[in-house]
């Protein structure tokens, strides 16, 4: 099965958002002075990283060769 242009575009768009969310949560975890929130931001960053990997795997499945 082929990947449509729309699907590729959407995966890319979500990867961009997830990437920004990871960076943001990581820096919020450092900036925050509340230990509970520090942990929360770190946890959320980790979940976004998981999403990023899932998206990337989906893209890889449609790539001509497994290069990654």
């Amino acid at each position, binding site marked *: 099965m082929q990947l*449509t242009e729309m*699907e590729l575009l*959407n995966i890319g768009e979500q990867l961009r958002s997830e990437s*920004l*969310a990871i960076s943001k949560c990581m820096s919020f975890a450092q900036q925050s*002075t509340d230990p509970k*929130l520090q942990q929360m931001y770190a946890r959320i960053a980790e979940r976004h990283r998981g999403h990023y990997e899932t998206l990337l795997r*989906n893209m890889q499945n449609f790539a001509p060769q497994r290069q990654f």
Partner: protein
Amino acid sequence: MIEEKDRLTDTLITQKYIASGYNSAASESANTQLMENFLGILRDEQQIQHEIFNEMKNRGWYQPSAAKMNDITQNLNQWSQEFQRLQNNAFHRPGMQQPQPPGYRSGTPQYNYQPGFGQQQMGTTQPQAMYQPPQNPIT
């Protein structure tokens, strides 16, 4: 100066944006497996969003005031009338079954409203007066 509350708000807005992206992406997927993956992540994004929402609520940074009883009654009247109008007009076509009164049918949302709301408008034709936006929108 960015404060603790601003960071939480920023994260909440980010979550809303990302979730909405997955919603579109899922519906635009021709590939079933890809759609399921989008939906799975969407669910997780919603959970993160709710987590942040709870954190803000617990800290008193998100305190929506309770809806006014009058506004609820007014809205309920308005939408009950709209439902009556739909029953009387939209579903009443030659050859179609006679519309049934609302509230008994399976699949009809069970609102806890007093029966009789909206009955006054039954049969009358006042298309202009049917939709009245609430005076005090609930925010």
